[in-house]
């Protein structure tokens, strides 16, 4: 098995490590970098729990060879909030965008990618984009409301919570 030197940033922090050719990005993020916010769900690219941004592009970390991350900028759920939650995270809380929470990191990453590409998506655009992120609790209504609420307010501070 060949090994490969990787250099990438994860949520702004630079990582340099050596990985075997068969490692997947999800394993490197969770096991080597210790960022366990990203979850492994189906492991076949269907459920969306492992959604990450690679140079801003939405991808399944469970399908991505780790060697593909070399030189890239990776964002996971841990990288969204700076001091305050993002408007999207705040809206997920206010609108009941989650219940058990297992899918939430992926939902937030997928919705972040949506809003950066389409700042004011309509119902159809939200549903088409988020269709690949499965949730067994919410029935999706709260997730859709949260994305609508957050749309168009990217970059502003979230409103104070009660």
């Amino acid at each position, binding site marked *: 098995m060949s090994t490969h030197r990787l250099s990438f940033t994860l949520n702004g922090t630079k990582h340099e490590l050596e990985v075997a050719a068969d490692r997947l990005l999800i394993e490197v993020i969770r096991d080597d970098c210790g960022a366990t916010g990203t979850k492994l769900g189906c492991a076949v690219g269907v459920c*969306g729990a492992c959604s990450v941004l690679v140079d801003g592009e939405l991808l399944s970390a469970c399908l991505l060879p780790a060697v593909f991350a070399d030189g890239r900028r990776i964002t996971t759920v841990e990288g969204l909030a700076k001091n305050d939650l993002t408007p999207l995270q705040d809206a997920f809380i206010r609108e009941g965008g989650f219940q058990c929470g297992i899918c939430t990191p992926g939902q937030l990453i997928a919705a972040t990618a949506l809003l950066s590409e389409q700042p004011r998506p309509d119902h159809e655009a939200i549903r088409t984009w988020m269709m690949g992120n499965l949730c067994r609790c919410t029935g999706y209504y709260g997730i859709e409301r949260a994305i609508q609420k957050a749309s168009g307010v990217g970059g502003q501070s979230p409103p104070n919570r009660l």
Partner: protein
Amino acid sequence: MTFDYHEPRSLAEALALLDRYGDDAHLMAGGTATVLLMRQGLLRPGHVIGLRAIDDLRGITPTRDGGLRIGATATLRAVERSPEARMYSPALTDAFASVATVRIRNQAMVGGNLAHADPAQDPPPMLAALNATVSIRSSRGERSLPIDELAVDHFTTSLAHDEIITGVVLPPIEPGSRETYLKFLPKTADDYATVSVAATLRFAPDGTIAETRIVLGAVGPTPIRARRVEDALRGQPPSRVRDALELVRDEVDPIDDLRGSAAYKREMARVWTGRALARVTR
């Protein structure tokens, strides 16, 4: 799974690796299919050759004659979002946009999609209906293959082991031609099709059908050209479509699976071919 990963920077280097490792090598573009097949133990190559760092395989560019060239390592999403591809044919970008989810389309690449030869995939039927040719290189030279002759069975192509798909070339679309892609998804929106239909059609000045190409996905071991339907319609008025549709059932060769029984898929192949033809004859 244990293998050595190679990421050549040039086509010449990739071809040399293929020649060196022979059938112990497996090419990988975006990796969506390769990673899954290796994880499932269905594929156990000693050497994986990644193609994504090769400049010559990139890009989506209009050709001088009004056609379109799509590089093998263009992602499905790059095609979906390409203004040049949309300008060429909205049906082309629609077909690419209907693959799985945005995450998969961001990773999967056109050359890999074709080499994987999954008969339920969306791009191959559309590319076939648009009369695409596949550009292929090996250390022995280069050749162009009509896309109809690429897939020969489930997950099997006519490619030799030392060959690499470098891209797809679409000929210019004739004036007055119409194209469509329809995908029947009775379960979930990110599923494989129960049946999909890509159709192109051009009328003659007298209002008869001059030419039509109809290619069905997910209802046979490869994308299926509905040649008998095409032949029955050539030179005929659109009022003949209804009768010609009866021929679809015998063109397709579906299997029973979670997406429907073979009998149901045969019937849906007829129904959805009718819907596709309604769109391009309207």
